[in-house]
């Protein structure tokens, strides 16, 4: 009998219109638990890594976290593994909400979608009944319209729907998969792959039990975690953020190429603007499944409609376009959700286009007559819509900054800030820690990379924070916090590996990173999560085993991507951060120009701690120790190892 996981897997071939039900090998769970671990392993077992991302042979593998669908605080996540058209590497996205739990209740931990349907379809999973249905009438619809229409035609209001919008249909590299209005699998072109398969949506309804191995102990641990969650719950709520942290957050998130905000731009009173806005507009605070943290909200703009906001989503656009008006940010994010676009890459690309226009690299002849100026809300919203439709300049920008620069030329490349071709979230990579975790992350991503200790204001309170036992890292590593980053990067590699293992385990368990490491006051640490996994599944997983499981997944992703040609040279951030001085304001925030010598030393150390060679290739010993002998053999046969 399965505990924690449910065991079933769906294999759906859209070319043939064929659905097969399988049982996953229990060994798969013991080695990888769930999420992107299982997703990566299945991808390798089922498809050649060299597959063209836009070919029927590419796979979309949906995999639920092992602690999802049971009373684990903040466990609502599943992942999607796929070959990314943007990075051309094996990638993944994680998404919360309610879909992953529903999938387990239907009896499946994993859904493997292959092939390409000749016409638009959606998949309907209702316990044992699995059906590929026509979606021609849904093609072109926004993501909220699609979800509502599917629920209505199925006559099932409790079905959970994940879907793409027009951006996914048009295969934008920044196309996302959306769910429930506030949840996205956003990055690296996941929505484009779904669109390429002509798959508009997956609707899920499940009525089965999920069993727990040691239930009383499990619920006791959960209740303790719920108690600990109180600090983070209020701290991360949007009201607290808008009242207390936005001015400083702006400094750290200076977005895209907008860089400094000139005096008189209105941003000097950004904090105040945010405070006024939230007091006026906040309608409801929202959470994902079984989560005590209210990190998402609905706001009202006084027009009878409600708009979702979360995290940095609304802020990104205000900074990218230099418009200190949150209502504008909210409208941009809403448009992204409706069209099915990743807000991070979208905002970054907007900033890029405006900057090129300012520099004269793009002119009105290139922009279909649009004046790409800072401060122009209408132009920004128009451009997002043009990107979603691949219309005019929108078509050039639709695949993100890296590809757009290649098309535009004329020095546009200098304005591209990407890691492994994926847009950076912020320019706070002048912080060596942020830069390093982004460069080494398995998805070239800060947002869901590893953040040791969040920046700025709460640094002031960090001694108390560490003493109270909130810190993710061993207490003795406090010394690393006093490192002068302008001269010395000590501890960077150690902290990166430790944090990365925690984050990886979070993805396998299906818990939210916001509650376990991204923000201060994480109420579940890796040891707590290991205990929960033990009680849920009946396996014996202690902290050391948890790190080993995480390390296995991380190394498998690395081995896959080095086979695809990724090298040490790719584990870096844009040259600007090594070559140019940070702005005056960034210096005041103790941000520094990166040092190549220190960087290389830490990269050597990071590879060594990971058990990879100096080129980032996992060594034979490491692969054997992690039980990845087939991967070792594969790398040896290809002459990579």
């Amino acid at each position, binding site marked *: 009998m399965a505990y924690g996981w449910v065991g079933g897997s769906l294999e759906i071939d859209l070319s043939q219109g064929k659905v097969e039900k399988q049982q996953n090998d229990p060994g798969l769970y013991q080695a990888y638990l769930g999420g992107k671990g299982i997703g990566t392993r299945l991808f390798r077992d089922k498809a050649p890594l060299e597959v063209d991302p836009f070919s029927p042979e590419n796979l979309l593998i949906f995999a639920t976290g092992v602690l999802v669908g049971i009373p684990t605080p903040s466990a609502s996540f599943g992942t999607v593994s796929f070959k990314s058209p943007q990075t051309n590497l094996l990638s993944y996205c994680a998404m919360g909400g309610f879909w992953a739990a529903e999938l387990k*209740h239907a009896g499946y931990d994993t859904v493997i979608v292959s092939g390409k349907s000749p016409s638009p379809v959606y998949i309907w999973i209702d316990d044992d009944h699995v059906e590929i249905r026509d979606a021609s009438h849904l093609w072109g619809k926004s993501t909220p319209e699609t979800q509502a229409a599917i629920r209505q035609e199925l006559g099932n209001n409790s079905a959970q729907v994940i879907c793409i919008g027009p951006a996914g249909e048009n295969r934008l590299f920044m196309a996302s998969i959306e769910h429930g209005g506030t949840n996205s699998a956003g990055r690296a072109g996941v929505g484009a792959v779904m669109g390429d398969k002509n798959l508009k949506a997956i609707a899920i309804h499940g009525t089965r039990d999920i069993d*727990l191995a040691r239930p009383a102990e499990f619920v006791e641990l959960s209740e303790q975690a719920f108690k600990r969650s109180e600090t983070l719950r209020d701290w991360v709520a949007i009201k607290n953020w808008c009242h207390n942290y936005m001015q400083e957050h702006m400094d750290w998130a200076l977005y895209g190429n907008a860089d400094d905000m000139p005096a008189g731009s209105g941003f000097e009173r950004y904090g105040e603007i945010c405070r006024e806005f939230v007091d006026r507009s906040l309608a409801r605070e929202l959470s994902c499944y079984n989560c005590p943290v209210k990190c998402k909200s609905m706001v009202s703009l006084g027009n009878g409609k409600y708009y979702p906001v979360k995290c940095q989503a609304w802020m990104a656009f205000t900074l990218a376009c230099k418009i200190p008006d949150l209502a504008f940010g909210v409208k941009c994010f809403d448009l992204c959700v409706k069209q099915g676009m990743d807000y991070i890459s979208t905002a970054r690309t907007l900033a890029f286009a405006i900057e090129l226009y300012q520099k004269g690299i793009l002119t009105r002849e290139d922009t279909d007559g649009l004046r790409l100026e800072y401060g122009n809300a209408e132009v920004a919203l128009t451009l997002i819509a043009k990107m979603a439709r691949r219309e005019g300049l929108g078509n050039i920008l639709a695949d993100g900054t890296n590809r757009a620069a290649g098309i535009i030329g004329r020095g546009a490349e200098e304005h591209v800030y990407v890691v492994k071709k994926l847009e950076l979230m912020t320019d706070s990579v002048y912080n060596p820690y942020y830069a390093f975790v982004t460069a080494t992350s398995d998805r070239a991503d800060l947002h869901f990379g590893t953040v040791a200790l969040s920046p700025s204001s709460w640094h002031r309170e960090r001694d108390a924070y560490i003493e109270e036992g909130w810190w993710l890292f061993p207490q003795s590593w406090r010394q690393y916090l006093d490192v002068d980053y302008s001269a010395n990067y000590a501890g960077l590699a150690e902290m990166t590996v430790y944090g990365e293992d925690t984050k990886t385990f979070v993805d396998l368990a299906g818990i939210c990173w916001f509650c376990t490491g991204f923000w201060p006051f994480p109420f579940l640490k890796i040891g707590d999560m290991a205990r929960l996994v033990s009680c849920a599944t009946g396996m014996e997983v202690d902290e050391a085993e948890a790190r080993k499981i995480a390390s296995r997944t991380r190394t498998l992703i690395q081995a896959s991507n080095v086979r695809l040609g990724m090298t040490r040279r790719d584990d870096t951030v844009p040259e600007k951060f090594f070559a140019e001085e940070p702005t005056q304001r960034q210096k005041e925030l103790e941000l520094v120009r990166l040092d190549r010598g220190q960087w290389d030393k830490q990269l050597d150390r990071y590879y060594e701690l990971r058990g990879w060679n100096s080129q980032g290739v996992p060594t034979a010993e490491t692969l054997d120790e992690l039980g990845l002998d087939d991967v070792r053999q594969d790398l040896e046969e290809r002459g990579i190892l």
Partner: protein
Amino acid sequence: MKIKTIRIDASKCTGCRACEMICSAFHAEQKYSIANPKRARINVFKDEENDVYVPVLAGPYTDVECLGRNTVTINDKEYGECSFCRASCPTRVLFKEPDAPEIALKCDMCGDEPLPMCVKWCMAGALTYVEREEAS
């Protein structure tokens, strides 16, 4: 006579459904041994786009559907009264055991627990427990 009451403040609901989760686990044959919100005796009615979230506790079983029905309008959107109805009723699957629909589910305030589990797990404060005296 002491009446146990759960007060619902729909404006505070974050839609997390922790109430459904723990309700189903608590009422498992072996306490907490399974999780399945389709077995819960509480259900969060959601209309995300219109910002309507209402936790509904399972009430009485009925073997015939209502003949007269009304509608409820919230912020100009019309909802059928079944949306907020507490009954285990032949017209719908809600508040019945999913594998044995002849068995109706009804909130029992978690028997002797000091607090109903949904209240205990509602971190948002949308559900609160109140006891009131009423003449029998």
